[in-house]
């Protein structure tokens, strides 16, 4: 009678079973940090007084948040990371490789049933691959890098059942925004959220990652998902053998939520809280100064695909930045001719990086500017000036809005596809 998280944490802590509320010491299968968190993790190791890693093949660094470096100070952070990685023989994905949450699974680091710890809150994304994946701070990352273990409280689990199929121009981002609007930004604090149902079973790897990615916006600790057949195939090419974990039929959930996917409409999270969810209808016509399509939420191939379909042969009316989440996504988009269409439509297509999502470089917002972004947070000042405003949406809504310079319902561009 165990949930997914209970099963994974039991196995990783060497127990037959564990239940919610228990503290466990779990073996960590992979731990990573990026240029926003790695240096502090290295410093934490020094504070603790042990500068060694437990297993060089299980520690990974990424230079993705402000990369290539926009300033000498940040270059120094990157240099320190490279030096550490070289000294300890750990893998470092340098500028241009892509966002940690995209590259880690692409490179085969994420296995079903494993424990993934990242010094980044969106580590929950890797739940899409049937893992227990959670974000930690730099000191916890340091402890995991040193000992290969970390304590966890086994979280309670909540079940979200999604049946039916998305209508044209509705994406998994709309689903996750809908859920966020229902449960609110702290609705699942400390919980493990499990998505089930026919809709989820039919989703692509890209769409599943978008859903898991935003679990942390509801406060969730993790979002382990059961595998579906496309994800199994995807993993087979990358990680070799694995044993998928399934929740027991009689597992205990503290709450259940049902969603009919066929009833969803395009949604946004309006400024400046992620749970300020509104339908596009309610905000239609809001003028935008910048459109951003990218990030670990929506910078994958299917996201770029839908944007290029909407923008194909037309011209954007406002500046529109498109950033593929990884080099792999970039060249797949290139090979498919998607980048060509985007550039012709007037988009600024960037190299793989977090980009404007975190307001570190590439497209910061000025005073009073408004952006529509496919990323995951719309907090005050997140993308630049503290008087700027961010609407979060799906790539379809963002691309359609780029065409008109104001927020529009993407379904009006649906028929011609």
């Amino acid at each position: 009678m165990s949930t997914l998280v209970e099963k994974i944490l039991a196995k990783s802590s060497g127990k037959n079973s564990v239940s919610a509320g228990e503290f466990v010491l779990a073996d960590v299968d992979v731990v990573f940090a990026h240029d926003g968190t790695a240096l502090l993790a290295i410093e934490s190791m020094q504070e603790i007084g042990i500068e060694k890693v437990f297993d060089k093949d299980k520690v990974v660094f990424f230079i993705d948040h402000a990369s290539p470096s926009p300033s000498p100070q940040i270059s120094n952070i990157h240099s320190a990371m490279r030096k550490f990685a070289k000294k300890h023989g750990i893998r470092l994905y340098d500028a241009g490789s892509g966002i940690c949450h995209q590259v880690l699974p692409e490179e085969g680091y994420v296995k079903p049933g494993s424990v993934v710890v990242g010094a980044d809150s969106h580590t929950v994304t890797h739940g899409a691959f049937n893992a227990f994946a959670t974000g930690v701070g730099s000191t916890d990352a340091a402890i995991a890098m040193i000992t290969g273990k970390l304590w966890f409280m086994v979280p309670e689990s909540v079940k979200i059942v999604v049946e039916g199929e998305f209508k044209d121009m509705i994406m998994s981002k709309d689903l996750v925004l809908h859920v966020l609007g229902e449960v609110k930004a702290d609705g699942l604090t400390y919980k493990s959220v499990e998505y089930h149902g026919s809709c989820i079973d039919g989703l692509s790897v890209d769409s599943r990652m978008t859903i898991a990615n935003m679990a942390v916006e509801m406060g969730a600790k993790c979002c382990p998902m059961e595998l579906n057949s496309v994800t199994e195939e995807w993993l087979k090419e990358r990680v070799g053998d694995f044993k998928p974990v399934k929740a027991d039929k009689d597992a205990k959930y503290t709450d259940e939520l049902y969603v009919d996917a066929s009833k969803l409409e395009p949604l946004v999270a309006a400024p400046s809280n992620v749970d300020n969810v509104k339908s596009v209808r309610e905000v239609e016509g809001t003028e935008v100064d910048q459109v951003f399509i990218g990030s670990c939420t929506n910078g994958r191939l299917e996201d770029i695909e839908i944007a290029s379909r909407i923008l194909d042969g037309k011209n954007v009316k406002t500046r529109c930045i498109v950033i593929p989440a990884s080099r792999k996504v970039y060249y797949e988009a290139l090979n498919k001719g998607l980048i060509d269409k985007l550039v012709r439509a007037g988009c600024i297509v960037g190299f793989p990086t977090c980009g404007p999502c975190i307001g570190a470089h590439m497209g910061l917002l000025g005073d009073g500017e408004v952006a529509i972004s496919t990323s995951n947070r719309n907090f005050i000042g997140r993308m630049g000036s503290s008087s700027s405003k961010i609407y979060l949406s799906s790539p379809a809504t963002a691309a359609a809005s780029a065409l008109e310079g104001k927020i529009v319902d993407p379904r009006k561009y649906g028929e011609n596809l």
Partner: protein
Amino acid sequence: MKINGKCVRLGDHINTDLIISGKYKYRTQDIKELAKYVFEDLDPKLKERLYGGSIIVAQKNFGCGSSREQAPRVLKAAGVNAVIAESFARIFFRNAINVGLPVIISEKKFIEMIKDNEPLTIDLSSGKVYALETGLEANIKPYPEFMLKIVEAGGIAEYFRNHKMFPWETKL
């Protein structure tokens, strides 16, 4: 262990971007320098009230948002002795414990009645918090033993340096 400080009242969902904006995180690694920008997007004047020993009293979901450990470190460096809230975002909670910033869960009713600026005393050992002007007292959610050890040591690094092991290496 007793903690004293003047109450600084804040609301719901104080996120890590508000505590310390991501833009500054890349400008400097020096926590003391970063502390100058604490709460800048919320209220630039707030930092003056934190100096010299304060206790932040917030409502729901304090510390939500990113995993940046700079957030609790900056609060500590800015003069915050503890944070009391109805609930915390989980990464922030872990980070705060790790860096030795006591984060304390207490009752909504109590939190709503505390006055801004009034002196507070938290007694971790007895599990109580006292508001000295309004004369109120409330229970706080007790820490598991290993967490209490970390907080009492002033952080996990300090604990490890003193004991040459992590607190859970004996018994979790």
